[in-house]
């Protein structure tokens, strides 16, 4: 019995001692690491070294209060992103840690080239978060990364713009890396990325437009207004404003809740179409005249008509360009039994679709005053 007991005890000791070995091997102390906050990739016009990689690094400091915002940048041109990063490792005296890289910025020039290889690098590496945000830098990624907005705190580095806890805005499209990848590969669901534009004095970053690239097409920019309505349709964005201008009366509605539903109607009798229902609830935020509470339904009607016009215009534009960021094609594939090539069918169908948009705006209040 005692032999068994000592055996067990010995075993337990060996097992617990093995834990010490565990940490000995793979672990690097935090003071031997430097954290990459964001990664930028630009296209150089050099054929041999087409990629320029920019890393924004946070400089670790002892106390947060004194540190303020301290960053440093590493830049390298190379034939592939991986080799650029291998070379950049020799530019810093610490191990580069990508585990906290939250934003990946592609330069605008890069979009005119094949993005597959670049997307591949980020998805293949294990230490880059699949929940990092992807954006397009205008005029280039370097400019955007090197911009230091005055309001920026150490470490925040752009990501407050995209996660919906900081800035909440209908003008911002947020695309996660995994979302970007699935849109790149899937048919009937096209990638769309927010555009970060830096001002010339490197003090301000504006992100209110977006860029759309349908497969085998040139990238195509959506204006802030279009981006807003795209967000309403695709993401049910709630921090939205609708500006209505009708017979000298100009008023703005702040939207609380929005919901979009759509259905593909392709029965043989009618022309194939998309029936899109948007219901929006909100209150009046600003007006150039006194508002009459009894007229709320009329105001709602005006707003509905306005939104309907805007949305139909956007959809027609997307159709004309043969782009599908909302995923109508995907919906088509998801509702028809795959007994034939349903996507091919959709490709022939999409240019001829009619849009039947119904917007139902209900204004609940005129705000604090009438």
């Amino acid at each position: 019995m005692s032999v068994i007991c000592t055996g067990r005890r010995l075993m337990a000791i060996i097992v617990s001692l093995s834990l010490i070995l565990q940490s000995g091997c793979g672990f690097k102390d935090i003071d031997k690491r430097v954290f990459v906050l964001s990664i930028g990739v630009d296209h150089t016009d050099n054929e041999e070294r087409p990629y320029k990689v920019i890393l924004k690094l946070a400089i670790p400091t002892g106390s947060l209060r004194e540190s303020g915002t301290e960053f440093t940048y590493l830049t390298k041109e190379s034939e592939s992103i991986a080799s650029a990063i291998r070379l950049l490792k020799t530019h810093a005296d610490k191990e580069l840690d990508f585990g906290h890289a939250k934003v990946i910025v592609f330069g605008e020039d890069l979009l005119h080239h094949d993005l597959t290889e670049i997307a591949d690098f980020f998805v293949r590496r294990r230490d880059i978060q699949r929940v990092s945000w992807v954006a397009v830098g205008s005029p280039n990624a370097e400019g955007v990364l090197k911009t230091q907005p005055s309001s920026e705190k150490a470490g925040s580095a752009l990501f407050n713009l995209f996660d919906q806890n900081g800035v909440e805005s209908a003008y911002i499209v947020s695309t996660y890396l995994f979302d970007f990848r699935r849109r790149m590969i899937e048919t009937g669901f096209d990638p769309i990325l927010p555009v970060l534009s830096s001002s010339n004095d490197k003090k301000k970053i504006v992100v209110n437009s977006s860029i759309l690239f349908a497969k085998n097409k040139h990238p195509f920019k959506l204006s802030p207004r279009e981006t807003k309505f795209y967000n309403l349709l695709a993401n049910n964005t709630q921090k939205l404003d609708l500006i209505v201008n009708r017979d000298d009366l100009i008023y703005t509605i702040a939207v609380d809740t929005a919901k979009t539903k759509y259905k593909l109607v392709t029965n043989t009798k009618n022309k194939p179409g998309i029936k899109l229902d948007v219901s929006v609830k909100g209150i009046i935020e600003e007006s150039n005249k006194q508002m009459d509470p009894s007229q709320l339904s009329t105001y709602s009607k005006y707003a509905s008509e306005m939104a309907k016009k805007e949305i139909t215009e956007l959809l027609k534009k997307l159709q004309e360009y043969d782009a599908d960021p909302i995923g109508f094609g995907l919906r088509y594939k998801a509702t028809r039994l795959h007994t034939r090539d349903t996507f091919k069918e959709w490709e022939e169908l999409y240019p001829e679709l009619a849009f039947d948009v119904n917007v139902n705006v209900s204004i609940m209040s005129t705000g604090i005053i009438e």
Partner: protein
Amino acid sequence: MNRYFIYLVFVNMVANVVASVPKILISQRSEGALLSMIISYILGLVFCYLCARFFNLFPGEGLPDLTKKYMPRWFSFVILFVIAVTWYIAGLITLVTFSFLLKRFLTPDMPLSWITITFLLFLTYGILLNSKSVLYTVEFVLICSLPFVFIITIKAYTSHELNWDFIGESLMYIHNPPSFTAISASAYLLLGGFNLIIFNRLFKKKQQINWKNMLFIALIGGTALVTTYFIPIGMLGFDAVGDVVYPWITTSDSLRLEFFIVERVIYIFLLLYLAISFLSVLIHWHVTLELLKSIIWFKKFQLKKRNLTPYLFLSFFWVASLIAVSYLTEYHLIQYSSYFLNFLLCSFVVMFSLFLFIKRRAKV
């Protein structure tokens, strides 16, 4: 049935992720994975029920005890040896897959053999425990980890990024004829009950599996199967999910817990599955060891009045897993797992004829 039986069934349902089941199913997504899942769901439930019914007839007796009683010695030796090897491989697949996962995601700078050795150390300690302590361990670890599994599942289903149209697209392939590979892969989820071949020794009281137990197993099993298959498709895309090596790990990295201590779900997920795959290997290898002990026992192989036969088996366990981990590549691992799962399903024909035979002989 008592709750320990349910735990045994549970472990397989949760641990399927580290047995390449999602990968195999997803690779068959346009070749009849859906119908296969439905078939194997029914098949698995029937298997689970029959197995429980059979062992209910013999309270307190494991399969080795029964074969010894009712079968010729040589036959009992062969069949138990084959079953032991099958169970060993089942554990080995989980062990090797998880060592690969740890190497890839958690401790990339640590040598693969070191990771496996650490695992093996803990496992050695675990499988040498008596069966009762093994069940207690299973209960404790499961109770600690199931809430997290639950939270991650809920998080996945409620995620805004989960695109139901991809799931819809995968449903549009329902008319494709089922494939055997997919059937056997998804059946794995419901085969946990077969660990009764050893653990029934502990269930000494007469008990009966009833429809409430089965309903519970069916409900949980169905949810597990649906989640295993559809969530990676919904998160990663119907076409794009095809070239992901570990669909569930990548899926867990696509989830984000904004207000948790750790934002990236992947790390919670990996630690959780460290516990669960440990349990899975523990159960399988404990069964292997007990089966081997019942057929091979060297009476004179002793040191200080202590029989060393189990240690002999364990050294085989170690050597085989260290060899496997150093020779297998990720691709081969998935390939061989799929062969193994195919074999596993076929072997149940033998298992059930064995049950029938024993039942006839025992006249119960």
